[in-house]
């Protein structure tokens, strides 16, 4: 660290800038000139300048794959028993992410000035954009899994607020709720992962966790569970199967939001999480990740084929591309997955903002209401086309650069683990689907002839504030910003795994290993993680031998010092296969993308095949896809229905059984008391009364004698005397 690293030293200010504009806009924004949009814009552009400063210091000047700037302060302590630190971690991926987030965010802010013009909640919109930017920047700067989780939840909040921005619409309110709760389901796993990591290592910092795991404090099945748990969080946030259902609905939010949050940045946070925690994923966990990504990318692409809403198509393509990233990370393509994250942020934001520009012009989201728009909106058209070329994986565009890496790594993985060939075939096939449905979108929207003349006549190119962001993002959809000097591949290198594998599983082609015996000896364990990163100048090469799974871009010579001959041989084999795989994959992906584009041309430009005929021919399939594989219905009928039923049952149980028991006790008591009361009244008091009554009765009877008449007394007296006389006489 030297004093020239000015921006790095003040990196913590970056997230605080948008936080300040959040507070300004939420409380006084309405009263500010222009309703405060400039406050948010100013802070985020300042953040962008600082992020570029850091990028320059770290990436351009530093150019060191192992760079890491790390500061922490104690935040929460319980004497010496518990510590959570607050701090920032800036390494190469953070430096890149900072620029990605602040750049896309700045452009989206600018775009929104035009797009949201005249909205009654204009100031609140910018406040929400600011809180999102704060949370997202905090997320990428976090140095511990605890703070990453905190910001993870906060981006979820911003997403909730922005999806439901037009909350008067029931669909928007539904979508925001769905997004938050679905994410919570994923967070459940994330939390479990954090808990496992903390319970075994006692720390939260990334470096500390990796060190502890590397020291063998957490191994085997528990480590796999921790990894899968963390990944569950990513499944929610990055809309992976089976929690992908929220993202398409999230399109209810304003389109700039869809571009920023639900395409470029927040949804990629899950991928970022997997990348950040990469050293702790066991081969098993990575396999789960790879398959999840593969299933997701396929399902989403098939659904996208059958959608007509421009934003829905883009949303499903986002899900599918996130699947590519996740799959890439899962098969060991660390660099590839993160590269796709970065390139996707650019071209997808470009297309989303382009769709916003289109929607702004024609006031419809149905692509079959559009057509021929290239003539009305040339800038939107060209930039959208560039984005589409990128996502389709056409050479010289950014998507080719990153997707090709993913497919290459997938093929290498498949070649090393032949029973997992699906992990290559499905993504490769889906790459073709992607090219097809994306060009379908472009052709229907911008080519052909206008279908709705009223809408077409009113369409116009968007103002400068909306066009400028499109141009910037389109420029970033070319490959040269990423391929220049090979900087990305050089600086973003796969971190060495911290996983300690049990004996005998160090290598071999099968990534599967059974539940690790707890007694994975530390001395045994420490050995395989020894081999460090190779010379960073060339393609940094990681020796992935200890996984038996995952080759990264291994072009340089792995550092094999200290390895046995067998291991050396294995590492060389992996490097060889990887190199070979990348060559094959490149040609295949070119062929597949070309086929997809060609097919779209044939159907939607040349009209040789009528889509309606195809649709009619396979109507059930189309219905199935158009209804998104019926996931919403499935969940609605199973999990949601069951939860609601269970909740009602418990509430019934509570008010009838539990409270019923309380009331029963009360009633029984009341009866007992009444009985006692009656007993008291009738028996105890009855006895008292009986005595009284008897006395009274006796008295009444006896009273009769007391007549008060002299002749009665005289009669009795005489009678008595007579009786006595008679007794005496006899």
């Amino acid at each position, binding site marked *: 660290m030297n004093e020239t690293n000015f921006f790095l030293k003040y990196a913590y200010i970056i997230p605080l800038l948008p936080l300040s504009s959040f507070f300004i806009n939420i409380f006084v924004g309405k009263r500010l000139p222009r309703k405060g949009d400039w406050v948010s814009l100013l802070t985020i552009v300042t953040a962008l300048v600082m992020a570029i400063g850091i990028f320059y210091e770290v990436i351009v000047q530093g150019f060191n794959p192992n760079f890491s700037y790390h500061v922490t302060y104690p*935040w*929460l*302590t*319980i*004497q010496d*028993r*518990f510590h959570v630190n607050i701090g920032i971690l800036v390494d190469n991926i953070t430096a890149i992410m900072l620029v990605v987030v602040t750049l896309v965010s700045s452009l989206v802010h600018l775009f929104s000035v035009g797009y949201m013009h005249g909205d009654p909640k204009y100031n609140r919109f910018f406040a929400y954009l600011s809180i999102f930017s704060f949370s997202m920047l905090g997320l990428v700067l976090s140095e511990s899994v*605890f703070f990453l*989780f*905190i*910001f993870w*939840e*906060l981006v979820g*909040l911003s997403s*909730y607020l922005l999806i*439901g921005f037009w*909350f*008067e*619409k*029931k669909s*928007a*309110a*539904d979508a*925001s*709720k769905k997004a*938050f*709760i679905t994410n*919570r*389901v994923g*967070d*459940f796993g994330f*939390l*479990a992962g954090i*808990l*496992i990591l*903390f*319970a075994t290592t*006692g720390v939260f910092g990334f470096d500390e966790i990796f060190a502890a795991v590397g020291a063998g404090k957490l191994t085997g099945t528990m480590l796999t569970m921790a990894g899968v748990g963390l990944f569950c969080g990513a499944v929610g946030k990055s809309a992976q199967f089976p929690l992908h259902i929220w993202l398409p609905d999230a399109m209810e939010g304003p389109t700039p939001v869809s571009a920023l949050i639900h395409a470029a940045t927040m949804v990629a946070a899950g991928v970022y999480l997997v990348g950040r925690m990469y050293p702790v994923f066991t081969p098993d966990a990575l396999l789960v990740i790879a398959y999840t990504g593969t299933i997701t990318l396929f399902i989403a692409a098939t659904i996208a084929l059958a959608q007509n809403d421009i934003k829905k198509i883009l949303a499903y393509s986002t899900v599918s591309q996130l699947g590519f990233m996740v799959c890439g990370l899962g098969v060991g393509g660390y660099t590839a997955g993160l590269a796709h994250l970065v390139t996707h942020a650019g071209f997808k934001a470009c297309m989303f903002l382009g769709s916003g520009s289109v929607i702004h012009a024609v006031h419809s989201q149905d692509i079959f209401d559009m057509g021929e728009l290239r003539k009305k909106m040339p800038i939107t058209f060209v930039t959208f086309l560039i984005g589409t070329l990128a996502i389709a994986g056409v050479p010289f565009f950014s998507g080719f650069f990153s997707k090709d890496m993913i497919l290459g790594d997938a093929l290498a993985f498949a070649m090393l683990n032949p029973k997992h060939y699906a992990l290559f075939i499905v993504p490769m096939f889906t790459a073709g689907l992607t090219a097809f449905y994306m060009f379908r979108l472009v052709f229907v929207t911008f080519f052909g002839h206008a279908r709705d003349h009223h809408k077409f006549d009113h369409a116009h190119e968007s103002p400068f504030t909306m066009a400028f962001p499109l141009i910037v993002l389109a420029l970033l959809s070319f490959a040269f910003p990423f391929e220049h000097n090979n900087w990305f591949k050089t600086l973003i290198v796969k971190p060495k795994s911290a996983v300690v594998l049990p004996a005998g599983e160090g290598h071999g082609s099968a990534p599967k290993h059974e539940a690790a015996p707890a007694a994975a000896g530390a001395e045994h364990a420490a050995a395989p993680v020894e081999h460090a990163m190779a010379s960073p100048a060339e393609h940094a090469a990681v020796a992935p031998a200890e996984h038996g799974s995952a080759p990264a871009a291994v072009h340089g010579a792995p550092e094999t010092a200290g390895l046995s001959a067998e291991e050396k041989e294995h590492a060389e084999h992996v490097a060889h296969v990887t190199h070979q795989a990348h060559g094959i994959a490149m040609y295949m992906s070119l062929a597949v993308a070309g086929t997809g584009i060609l097919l779209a041309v044939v159907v939607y430009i040349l009209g040789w095949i009528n889509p309606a005929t195809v649709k009619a021919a396979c109507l059930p399939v189309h219905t199935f896809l158009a209804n998104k594989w019926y996931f919403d219905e499935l969940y609605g009928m199973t999990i949601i229905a069951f*939860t*609601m039923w*269970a*909740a*009602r049952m*418990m*509430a*019934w149980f*509570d*008010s009838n059984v*539990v*409270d019923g*028991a*309380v009331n029963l006790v*009360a009633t029984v008591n009341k009866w007992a008391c009444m009985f006692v009361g009656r007993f008291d009244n009738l028996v105890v008091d009855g006895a008292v009364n009986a005595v009284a009554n008897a006395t009274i009765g006796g008295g009444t009877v006896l009273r009769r004698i007391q007549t008060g008449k002299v002749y009665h007394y005289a009669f009795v007296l005489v009678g008595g005397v007579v009786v006595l006389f008679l007794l005496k006489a006899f």
Partner: protein
Amino acid sequence: MALIDNHILSLMTFIPLIGAALILMVPKGNDKVVKTMAVVTTIFPLLLAVKLWGAYDRTLAGVNLASGFQFVEHYVWIPSINVDYYLGADGISIPMLMLTSLISFLAVIASFGIEKQLKGYMALFLLLETGMMGTFASLDFFLFYVFWELMLLPMYFLIGIWGGPRKEYAAIKFFLYTLAGSLLMLVALLALYFNTADPVTGQHCFNLLTFMNQSTHTGILKHFDVRILMFLGLFIGFAIKVPLFPFHTWLPDAHVEAPTAISVILAGILLKMGTYGMMRILFPIFPDVTRYFVYPMAALGVVNIVYGAMCALAQSDLKKMVAYSSVSHMGFCLLGMAALTPVGMVGASFQMFAHGIITSMLFLLVGVVYDRAHHRQIDGFGGIAAVVPVYTFFVVVAFFGSLGLPGLPGFLAEQMVFLGAFATAFSGFKTLVIISTFGIIIGAAYHLWALQRVFLGPLNPKYAGLEEINGRELFTLVPLAIVAVILGCYPMPVLNLMNASMVKLVDVVKMVM
């Protein structure tokens, strides 16, 4: 000043009582005077609480060590049976005393809408505050019991006279249920009294710290079976207050019927009496039985969390939903305590504080809408966020606080409970924690679902003219929101108060000296 310095806890406890007496002397028809007097009376304990916060030595632990207590006042009260007037504060009670003074002050202001017999209401309210303060400050079991029972009486009348349509039922239910718990406590209290001897004088006493000294236990207190029975007696007494499943059903009734400010007191402070009692009395006096019962206690906590959340999901009355959310949130306290780890114990204690702040906001907010719409049916509204944005803002803050959003204290408390319970040495707690995290998902579901049905979607034309939240209502909510945000972002101001005592408490229960 010496008076204040030496008798700060007594002043906090009895100033409200004096205020109540003075209020009763105000002639009829002077409602403004009564209100002013009530506010002024509750300001004093609040100011003293600030002083308490400033003067409290964070390094001392207290718990079972007399010298660890601060602001101590120790006098003989009833010499014939050795009852002492013994007040003192440590990390277990300090946060609760502060919470009580704050919530009481705000609740008085929230009571300004009361029209019926305001004088009586305020007098009873202040009497209630005396009871609460005394309970949190007492270190003599007899004194504790007196204050504990003292709370019952005003609460009964406050619900029974100023409550909703079913107020008599709710008041009697609350009274009898709590009284039943108190009697179990009384039995245990007497058993403790007769089976311990002060090591210095050799006589029976009610000193809690003496009870905590295991060597003073004699007679039947040496039999584990008896100790279990006494533990259960005390536990049920406290559990009713928390309230723990299955003793919780008085709570929804009492909450729904009680006037807003009383619901605030009930949920914000009274529920904490239960968990406070466990920390202050139950755990340190019966550490062996506590360890014996960690699983049932944790399981009850988990049942509370999940079951309370599920019940909340099914409610149609907003206030009842909030009431069940309290059931759910108090479950976290028990789970954290049962783990017997410093993190879990601090988490439980922090949850008590956090829940006190957040649930008070929730009840105040429910009261706001009830005052205007005269009903609380969740489905009876719709889209009112468009009409009352400021009110909605506070509801969103409180709801998200309640569902555990970072930046608000509930999140940290829950996380600490989870971390503490997951990292405990007791096997099987991991499963319990995983089950309880379902409560977090359900928590998000019922809060957001209610938020949507009441505030979002198309506006129900019936409420197009709904009045925005007014200045007085804002005055009660803003301080709570500020405290919530500060503690959510930086919890140390409160955690520092608790830490030493909580760590000590864990050590005491685990017999680690």
